[in-house]
């Protein structure tokens, strides 16, 4: 502040420019562009992926790419590089990005999404055509995700940003038209409109070396370069886990999604549909009040599954190590698991049951198949969490319930477009048909599981309306905004929830994900035992959960839902060989700031002119002053 004041006063005396609009000269030189999302850097045990700018920020002259001709011009005729490319989804694909990379003339890529033209592209998935290609139980022989471009799995030498701001985009376009677009052959001779992208990533090479460099023993004040990815898994057993329980059916779904840009990870089709169906199944089963004897059911939401099955591999590792005690402190062993049912990507349209090791005449399977009118695909290995179980025990019966056969239906798998619109809805349209299809799966599965554990033919009083209402309430929490009644009920009283979509990205292990916390609390609220006689203080004294409750008056919950760590075993095992490829080794780089600003890049000619003028004036003045001093006696008659 003091500094600013001085600068102001001095400029009163030598006023150069009006300071009505801006306080610092800096404000007139740059236009910060907010509301951008950056691509960041991730590592696995052997490679680095994603993007990083140079340490001080990467500057490139704006070049708007709208068609093939613009790309060719960049490759052959451009003179004032490096450039920052501004493009929209129709030009944003692997082939063109590779051409930018090979041209060595690109210092940044800004992907823009005009709200005016909000139509999604026909497909866009930055993930692999075989998601988690190297961590499945079998080799991937056919592309499950035919739209996958593998943009996520490439090390880009330039920063990439995403922007959905009509106003900023029009400013960038205006600046481009004013300074860059005309007389393009002679661009190098004038000042040009440019973008500076700042997204410098501290980590480099691979997880192993960046973790080694972050080792705390080297210096007193350690610098951390990257963090392991991970969060928490959520588990809930239908009945209490006591000694009578001989076998367990696991019902699982993944809790995370992925995308190229930070914070923009909606995961609607790839994650939310399965997640919501699992929650509804669990809560409905709790509602049906199934009594468990020797066969129990455990619902698990697994985190970090998009990045080489972090959560499921950790779960299986813990089971194998006889170290899994998240279910009421009771140890669960791997060989107790009777079968695994996974809820994959779901939605409208036909359903498919991808099975392994199931007898075709298994009662549960055939009931599910007939009631869901699903198509049975035997020995089918879609990229899903069951892969981690199969990897450990290849004879374990597993089912993946999904809306796809051998190819994903979702055209935006693990992308920022995998949102409500990606599912085919606009922000205000009714989700009725999606609700109905998901509740059909949830109700059927819950009733089938009910009959399996109780040994009866089904629940005495099925209530499909309950499931529909539940899913109709759950979906907006994950697809529209976290500010919804269920999330509010599942938070401590007085919590302010953000009125926006929460990112489904698993993120770094050392910080808790809001989505995981809210989902865990929600499951606890709807499956736990309320203790109406306990107040807030008494509740926390007994280590129970105090939350707002459905009527927002505060309720104490004795929950059986619990968390377990979802950090890859690679970071738990001592001296684990990061290059072995057994477990997920994903880490995320640390960064200091992410930002973008527009500026006018001076032409080389002006810069040369000012340097030459300054040098000439300085040298001439030295000669002149020397001359005057040596002749001073003559000049001023003092001699």
């Amino acid at each position, binding site marked *: 502040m003091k500094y600013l*004041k*001085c*600068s*102001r*006063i*001095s*400029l*009163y*005396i*030598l*006023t*150069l*420019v*009006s*300071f009505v*609009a*801006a306080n*610092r*000269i*800096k404000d*007139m*030189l*740059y*236009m910060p562009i907010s509301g951008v999302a950056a691509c960041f850097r991730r590592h696995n045990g052997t490679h680095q992926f994603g993007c990083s700018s140079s340490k001080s*920020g990467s*500057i490139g002259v704006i070049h708007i790419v709208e068609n093939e001709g613009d790309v060719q011009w960049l490759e052959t005729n451009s003179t004032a590089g490096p450039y920052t490319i501004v493009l929209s989804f129709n030009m944003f694909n692997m082939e063109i990005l590779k051409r930018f990379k090979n041209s060595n003339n690109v210092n940044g890529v800004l992907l823009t999404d005009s709200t005016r033209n909000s139509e999604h592209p026909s497909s866009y998935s930055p993930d692999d055509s075989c998601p988690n290609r190297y961590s499945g139980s079998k080799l991937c022989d056919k592309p499950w995700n035919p739209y996958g471009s593998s943009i996520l799995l490439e090390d880009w030498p330039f920063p990439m940003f995403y922007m959905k701001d009509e106003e900023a985009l029009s400013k960038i376009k205006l*600046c481009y038209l004013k300074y860059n677009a005309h007389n393009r052959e002679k661009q190098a001779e004038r*000042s040009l*409109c*440019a973008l500076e992208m700042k997204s410098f990533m501290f980590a480099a090479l691979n997880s192993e070396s960046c973790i080694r460099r972050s080792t705390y023993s080297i210096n007193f004040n350690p610098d951390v370069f990257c963090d392991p990815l991970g969060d928490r898994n959520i588990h809930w057993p239908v009945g209490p886990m006591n000694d009578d329980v001989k076998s367990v059916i696991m019902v699982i779904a993944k809790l995370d999604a992925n995308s190229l840009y930070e914070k923009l990870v909606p995961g609607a089709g790839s994650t939310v549909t399965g997640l919501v169906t699992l929650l509804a199944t669990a809560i409905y089963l709790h509602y049906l009040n199934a009594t468990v004897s020797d066969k129990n059911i455990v619902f698990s939401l697994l985190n970090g599954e998009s990045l080489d099955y972090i959560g499921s591999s950790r779960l299986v590792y813990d089971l194998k190590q006889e170290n899994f005690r998240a279910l009421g402190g009771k140890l669960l062993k791997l060989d107790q698991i009777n079968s695994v049912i996974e809820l994959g990507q779901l939605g409208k349209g036909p359903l498919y049951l991808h099975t392994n090791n199931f007898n075709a005449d298994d009662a549960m399977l055939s009931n599910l198949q007939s009631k869901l009118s699903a198509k049975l695909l035997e020995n089918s290995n879609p990229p899903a969490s069951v892969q981690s179980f199969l990897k450990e025990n290849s004879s374990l019966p597993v089912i993946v319930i999904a809306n796809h056969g051998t190819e994903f239906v979702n055209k935006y798998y693990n992308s920022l477009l995998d949102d409500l619109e990606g599912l085919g809805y606009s922000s205000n349209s009714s989700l009725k048909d999606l609700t109905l299809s998901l509740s059909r799966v949830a109700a059927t599965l819950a009733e089938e599981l009910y009959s399996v554990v109780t040994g009866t033919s089904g629940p005495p009083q099925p209530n499909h309306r309950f499931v529909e209402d539940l899913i109709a309430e759950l979906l907006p929490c994950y697809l529209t905004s976290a500010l919804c009644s269920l999330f509010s009920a599942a938070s401590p009283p007085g919590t302010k929830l953000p009125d926006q979509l929460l990112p489904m990205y698993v993120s770094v292990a050392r910080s808790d994900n809001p989505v995981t916390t809210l989902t865990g609390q929600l499951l606890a609220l709807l499956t736990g035992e309320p203790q109406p006689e306990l107040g807030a203080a008494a509740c926390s004294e007994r280590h129970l959960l105090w939350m707002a409750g459905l009527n927002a008056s505060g309720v104490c919950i004795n929950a059986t839902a619990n968390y377990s760590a979802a950090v890859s075993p690679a970071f738990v095992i001592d001296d684990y060989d990061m290059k072995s490829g057994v477990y997920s080794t994903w880490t995320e780089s640390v960064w200091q700031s992410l930002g973008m600003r*527009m*500026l*006018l*890049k*001076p032409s080389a000619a*002006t*810069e*040369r*002119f*000012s*340097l*030459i*003028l*300054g*040098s000439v*004036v*300085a*040298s001439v*003045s*030295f000669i*002149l*002053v*020397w001359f005057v*001093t040596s*002749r001073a006696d*003559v*000049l*001023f*008659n*003092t001699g």
Partner: protein
Amino acid sequence: MTVMDFFGCALLAFGPPLAMFTFTIAIEPIRIITLIASAFFWLISLLLSSIVWYTIIPLQGYLSIGLIYSVFFQEIFRFLLYKVLRKTEKGLEKLTTAHVADSRDVFAYVCGLGFGLMSGAFALTNVLADAMGPGTMGLHQGNEYFFLVSAATTLCFILLHTFWGVIFFSALDNRNWFQIAWVIGSHMFASCMTLLNSYDHHAASLFSVYGILLVTTAVAFNVAGGRVQNLLQCFIKQ
């Protein structure tokens, strides 16, 4: 790349004063001391201007009013500096072999340069700091010659302060009210002309301040005892 801009502007604004310092000030310690003292006086005038700016909040929005009282503060402190110098010149002579009282024009020049250097430093430092950055002026307003114009104006004001010092001190000695009026009036006028820069009239502002510099240089040359025929002579004399 814009490191070139930075050095170009720095050399343009501070190259000539550096030459003057090297050949005329640095040769005698007493001149360096006087230079620093005079620079300090300018700083106090800046402090007063900023106190006024800070306390009278309604005037903060008007740049021109701040400019006017700031010019007056500078001229008052030039006068105070004159008074101090006259009071101390006998004492200063005891410290040094130089004849302070006999070379009043030299010390007036030293004081003027001190004023100029400090005002120049304050005027340009912030601009130079931003000249380093990757961007140049012209995105919202102004043009790419902003930094050069700033440097040239700063140079002009450093030289103006130097010659105003020479004229002002001698005019006070001789009670030449016309010259005093010229110093204050041209200071005010030149400062006001820089306001034109906010309307992108860089040429008008530059030409007028350099025009005043030309006249002021001529007056100062005359005051210091220079004659035109002498000017010719020094080229002839070997």
